[in-house]
């Protein structure tokens, strides 16, 4: 982390904190989306941001990425204050992250290899041939070997998503963000993506932050989470989703994790 950011360390005292969110209030003008968010993402976590549709999950993600400025509160990456950092330091921090956007967000004027090669060309001293090799490797990792010269419009939505993941992994990031990774994927592809996320965390040692409302994914991969409640406009629970399912005193959280409480089957058991 750059030492140029002079700010107090996040006051949570939690060792191993990778991202610390303190008193975050998100608002568009006078409309408050969420207030008083406080949570910590630890190194190696698969952290789930969950909640009902339209509660501000993606908005929270955009705050974590600095695409929207908080109305109040601060976000720390390790000990660096991201919210108050100047643009150069922010870029430095963001360079250690990779993001998979909802629709993949591949640059449509470039081939898949060029999409993955662009950050490599910008931020490394690799030769074009080496960049091409690494791009091929990343594509192979997500099961798209041989698709180097395809344009994003020539492949299916699920493949675009996987190519987006390959691009997010281009610089071997320390943190990977996923915005609704299973949206628009069939159950099997979605399951494969979950497995891929787990393997990335285990083998690359990355921290993973996932925005989702897919219960199957939440229980299959998440080991930490925050629940955003639409009614009270704040977080009502945090922690391991499997623990929340068993012990959460909050009826909203319980209803969410059990599909409204009508599901007799325990979803935690139904998946992995």
């Amino acid at each position, binding site marked *: 982390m750059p030492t140029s950011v002079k700010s107090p360390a996040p006051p949570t005292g939690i060792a191993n904190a990778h991202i610390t969110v303190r008193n975050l209030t998100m608002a568009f003008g006078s409309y408050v989306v969420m207030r008083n968010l406080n949570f910590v993402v630890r190194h190696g976590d698969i952290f789930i941001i969950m909640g009902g549709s339209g509660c501000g999950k993606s908005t929270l993600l955009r705050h974590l*990425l600095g695409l929207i400025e908080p109305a109040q509160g601060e976000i720390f990456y390790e000990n660096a204050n991201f919210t108050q950092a100047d643009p150069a330091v922010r870029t430095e921090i*963001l360079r250690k992250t990779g993001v998979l*956007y*909802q629709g993949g967000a*591949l*640059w449509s004027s470039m081939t898949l290899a060029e999409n993955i090669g662009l*950050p490599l060309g910008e931020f490394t001293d690799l030769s074009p041939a080496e960049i091409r090799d690494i791009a091929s490797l990343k594509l192979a990792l997500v099961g798209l070997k041989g698709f180097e010269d395809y344009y994003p419009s020539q492949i299916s939505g699920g493949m675009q998503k996987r190519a987006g993941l390959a691009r997010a992994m281009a610089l071997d990031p320390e943190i990977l963000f996923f915005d609704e990774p299973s949206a628009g994927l069939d159950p099997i592809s979605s399951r494969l993506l979950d497995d891929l996320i787990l393997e990335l965390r285990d083998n690359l040692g990355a921290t993973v932050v996932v925005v989702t409302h897919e219960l199957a994914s939440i229980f299959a991969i998440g080991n930490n989470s925050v629940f955003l409640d639409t009614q009270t406009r704040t977080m009502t629970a945090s922690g391991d989703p499997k623990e929340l399912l068993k012990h959460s005193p909050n009826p909203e959280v319980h209803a969410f994790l059990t599909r409204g409480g009508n599901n007799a089957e325990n979803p935690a058991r139904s998946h992995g």
Partner: protein
Amino acid sequence: MDGTVQATLPPGELSFARKDAATLVVRISGNWHMRHGLPSAAALLNELTAQPRPQKIAFDTSALGQWDSGLLAFLTGVSEVCRQNQVSPDLAGLPDGARKLLELAEAVPEKTGARAEVAQTSFVTSVGAATLSFWEGFSEFLTFFGEVTIAFGKLFEGKARFRRVDLMVLIQDCGANAFGIITLLSFLVGTILAFMGAVQLQQFGAAIYIADMVGIAMTHDMGAMMTAIIMAGRTGAAFAAQLGTMKVTQEIDALVTMGISPMEFLVLPRVIALCLMIPLLCLYSDFMGILGGGFVSATMMGIAPGVYMRETMHAVTMTSVIGGLVKSIVYGVIIAVAGCLRGFQCGNSSSAVGDAATQAVVTGIVYIVVACGIFAFLFNILGI
């Protein structure tokens, strides 16, 4: 129910009866299809206010044929009227399906304050708001222009980055690919100028001065102006649509979080491409306009091409050609900046992309005309 019976049933009908003094029976009969139009719940109001005032409403649907959402819309209207008049509706007489759908529709209370308010603004207010938003737009434009300038500074320090291949594609797109339309329109503008001048000049036997008029008008103003307006409609709109779509699909977010400045990566090559190409197009437009004027002179007024050419070379000075080129570069900056700015400001829907393209053209042309006025004023002071 039997199909033939239904076919003979009349379209939806409504009648009222009293079971006893306190109970109003609403009799619903016939086929209730929304495509045939339906009785309104307002008729019920008269019955409710009639003496003696009913306390309850019951439904009789024994003669009801087929029904669809039209019936439900009517029933929700009825239950709204009942609520306002503190009358309790007894839903037991309704078909099962209709009753359940009605309960579903009323399960969640209406969100208050969510309906669109029709704002009434006076003429003066809207004029004021429009004026303020024009100035706001102008200051946004200047801010964006400033950011582009800073990015250019980085470019000269060798720090700014974009892909050379993108620049080449853009140069081809706003240079070579625009030749056809510039050829056609500039030639036509030249002929129009010549026609209009010819009528006047012929009256006192000064037809040869058509060459002077067309030459000076094209090089001084019309060449740059025509090129700029064509490019605003062609390239400015394309820039806004490209960047707007990239905004919608989060491609711009992806650049930002990757640590790549969209200003350098997307805007710089567009501004450079347009500013390199537009003076060439302008020069070409000058030439085509003069050619158009010469064509009219030769065919309609019998001025020999050689004579026309000599007169043109005599009239057109290097200063006015260069003045036109300088103007065209300024117009190019305006078009590129307006296009990119509107693209970046694009909202998150497909109609927003269309708005962005429209806005880019409108902003571009308005500022081009303003700049043209400023140039006329400046050139006048400088005596050019």
